[in-house]
């Protein structure tokens, strides 16, 4: 198993690729020579400065906590909803238009309504983000649930698997690619929504900071905050999604 992990892991290509990205960025920033397109060096120095002052860790930690909580809520609810809709065609016929409506209501409308109704509090943020993201997860997982192989469900039925076993051994493995897609997109989307929700009505978090620096047009610091989050996602990628992906690759022909 160990050999496999090394072979199919992100490995050295990933690291080289990121370094390459930074080099390219550096060169184009040099070439552009504009204060509106800062290079990695000045971004890094802003980043370090913000870390030193303790501002960035504080806001980043808050945003990460919000993202994590919303992510879990949205993924669990969305997946459950998606599977139910994918399996029960009758119910889907009824709920599909609602899903489409919820999917397409602009984030800002949901955010305004939740803030107005629940006040500028943490719950409002979570509700707004969940309401924004759940339909996306549900739409993806519904397709996955529809593509579930009846053959396997019949095996589970014949051999009377307990529901938990059926979910773990029969359903999840088939949904894995959909879960991965929904997870990766979900994390990115939730982070983007959290930013918007923060900038409209929270007094801390990366979104709040971005907005402040946007007002000053401090592009370097804006990119520094974005870079800090992207770094976190790359770590999550390494720790969470990549191993999941390897598990799928293990059994495919």
């Amino acid at each position: 198993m160990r050999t496999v992990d090394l072979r199919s892991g992100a490995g050295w290509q990933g690291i080289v690729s990121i370094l390459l990205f930074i080099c390219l960025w550096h060169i184009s920033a040099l070439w552009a020579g504009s204060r509106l397109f800062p290079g990695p060096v000045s971004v890094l120095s802003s980043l370090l400065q913000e870390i030193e002052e303790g501002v960035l860790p504080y806001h980043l930690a808050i945003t990460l906590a919000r993202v994590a909580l919303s992510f879990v809520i949205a993924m669990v609810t969305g997946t459950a909803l998606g599977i139910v809709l994918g399996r029960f065609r009758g119910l889907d016929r009824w709920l599909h238009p609602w899903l489409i409506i919820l999917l397409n209501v602009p984030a800002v409308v949901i955010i305004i309504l939740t803030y107005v109704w629940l006040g500028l509090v943490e719950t409002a943020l979570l509700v707004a983000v969940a309401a924004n993201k759940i339909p996306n997860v549900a739409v993806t997982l519904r397709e996955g649930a529809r593509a579930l192989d009846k053959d396997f469900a019949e095996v589970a039925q014949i051999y009377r698997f307990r529901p938990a076993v059926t979910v773990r051994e029969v359903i999840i493995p088939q949904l894995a690619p959909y879960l991965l897609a929904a997870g990766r997109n979900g994390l990115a989307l939730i982070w983007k929504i959290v930013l918007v929700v923060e900038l409209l009505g929270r007094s801390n978090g990366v979104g709040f900071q971005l907005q402040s620096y946007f007002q000053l047009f401090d592009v370097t610091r804006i990119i520094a905050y974005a870079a800090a989050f992207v770094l976190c996602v790359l770590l999550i990628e390494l720790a969470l999604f990549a191993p999941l992906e390897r598990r799928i690759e293990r059994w495919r022909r």
Partner: protein
Amino acid sequence: MSLKIDVVRKIYARQGDTPERVLFEGLSLELADGEVCALVGPSGTGKTSLLQMVAGLDEDFTGTIEGRPPDIGYLFQTPRLFPWRTARQNLELVLPGRVERAGELLAEVGLAGSEDVYPQRLSLGMARRVALARALAVEPKLLLLDEPFASLDTATSKGMQDLVSAQLQRSRPTTLLVTHHWHEAAALADRIVVIDGSPARIVENRAVLRPRAAE
């Protein structure tokens, strides 16, 4: 308790471009407890469909299946192993609490050494043997076998027949065995039922006279 199959009417409805198909119209069959019945018939008459109905997987027909026990072993016509689980893990899934049986069973179907292979990397014959092991593993009271010895060379096929035969002797499940080979039917079954036509009817239903029935 005997197994009473009474199908008044089974129709596959028109769906997409697929036309409607009336599969059965009045088909009754009763199997005594522990009886082994070979089901024979041309390709496409409805053998697999009947097995699905008997197993309770297809309830979309008029008629009744009575006396179906809860423990069923069903060897599907395709292996239907979970591709994300190795051969051994596939067996372990139906053997909760008795996982050590998985290795023994694999050895019995001649797959010692291939326990940790994922199904998509097994040959078809090997995969079907794992599936057979799975059907036998649960020691069912109702055993449904859809062409258990197809895609196997003569020697392996013989070995599997002996294995099934031993299990039939041991735990005496009521058994429905689909096969295209009269010698298989004769070797294992107490009775041979032939279905044919569209809609399919029982065109022959006769007992096999052989030592075991006399035991």
